């Protein structure tokens, strides 16, 4: 789940103030996301570890490139990871002198925030949601596409809140698996 903006602000203040432990906390929170994103694009764990390392080191070295007033820390790190991964794949593709596939034809994003998910990939996410088992798809659709809170999802379905929460998590995990397999 997305951390509240205030959380991002404080972490950012700590990193700008040179607090190494804040970088450790950010790493622990977002390394799976950054790594997962890189693996999804590059299909290469070794390269993805390099990208993960570079994303966090870059954030530490140039923390002022991020502005919490303009977007979430999570979105920022995902954007850098996405870019590096795409750059890597492009370089590889060029090396192989092969035709660049449709997933790499996305235009250069003007706004960083838009860069993480191309239309092609967004379609992939929606398709993966459509393939979820009914009970999981239902909670995901309510929570994400109807803007319902956990509490409201639980009420809508007559479930205890804890059950609704764990179903959403299960749905997210299934989606993560589906996205990891997709196109592999």
């Amino acid at each position, binding site marked *: 789940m997305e951390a509240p903006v205030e959380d991002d602000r404080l972490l950012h203040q700590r990193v700008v103030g*040179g607090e190494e432990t804040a970088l450790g906390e950010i790493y622990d929170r977002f390394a799976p996301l950054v790594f997962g994103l890189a693996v999804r694009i590059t299909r290469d764990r070794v390269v993805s570890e390099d990208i*993960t390392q570079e994303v966090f080191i870059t954030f530490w070295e140039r923390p002022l490139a991020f502005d919490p007033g303009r977007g979430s820390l999570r979105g920022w790190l995902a954007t850098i990871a996405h870019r590096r991964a795409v750059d890597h794949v492009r370089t590889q593709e060029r090396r192989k002198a092969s035709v660049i596939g449709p997933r790499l034809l996305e235009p250069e994003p003007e706004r960083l925030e838009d860069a993480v998910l191309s239309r092609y990939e*967004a379609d992939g996410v929606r398709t993966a949601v459509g393939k979820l088992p009914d009970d999981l798809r239902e909670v995901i659709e309510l929570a994400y596409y109807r803007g319902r809170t956990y509490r409201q999802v639980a009420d809508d379905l007559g479930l205890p809140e804890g059950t609704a929460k764990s179903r959403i998590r299960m749905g997210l995990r299934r*989606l993560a698996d589906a996205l990891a397999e997709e196109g592999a």
Partner: protein
Amino acid sequence: MNDDPTRRLYLDALMEGTEPPETSLRPLVLTAARARRRPAAATSGWTAPFAGRIAAMDAVLGEATDQDWGRQVVEGWTLQELLAHLAAKDGLVSLSVDAPVLGPPVTVNEGLARTAELQEYERRRAPDQTRRDWRTQADALCRHLASVAPDTPSETGGFTMPVVDHLLARGLETWIHTADAAGVLGVSLPHPVPGHVEVTADLCARLMPLAMRLSGHRVPEGRAVRLALTGPGGGLWHVPLHLGGRAVRGDGPAEATVTCDVVEFCFLVGGRGDPGGFAAGVEGDAGLARELLHAAPALSGP
């Protein structure tokens, strides 16, 4: 596009991914990060607010291009000359506690004279050497102070205070000049963490009786202001305004209440902002409140 549900879902799903990177990657990341940008010299204890501002300035300097170093930032000084100024004043605090003082020997123990001396020296050097000297001076001071009691008296630039207060003042000046530099470079500078803002505001509140005196007000004992500072790191201060009065956190009998943003108050005390147009809510004795706001910058210099 943070609000796009598919994007949010995509990132949430990736965060639930079950194949994280190898655990051996974490220490590699932290070690490599440290080598790319030096962490603060202290992140706990009474030197941490100063060390944090040094690290933040260094982060801003990391955004400067070669051309930026020659641009005027403030007081007609270039970024390089500004750094020499900060290093000069940090060096005078070092001198007061027998910590290492970098650069040419100090001939006059006074801020502006030492500034001129160090600027003269640094102008002959490359900007990144000046940056390194400034950082080394600040870190050496922090390291030395790790074994010094915070209430140790320090006479710096002819002004005696506990060394902790001199260091907080150095932190405030570094913060303000970092904001100056960030403005010129077009970088958005986040505030210090609330705990560091709070101790800086506390110093500012405690300096008010002296600021009133320096501004020519002979305030009789018993006259006090309630300072309600808003925002992270803010709070309530009871500020007696007679010379020797000691401001404390909390409430007490006061003739006026001044409510304003905690960071703006610190910057006002540091000489930024116009006391006449300062955004503050005033209740009670408006004349006394106005005197305080006008006196607030009295201790600030370049």
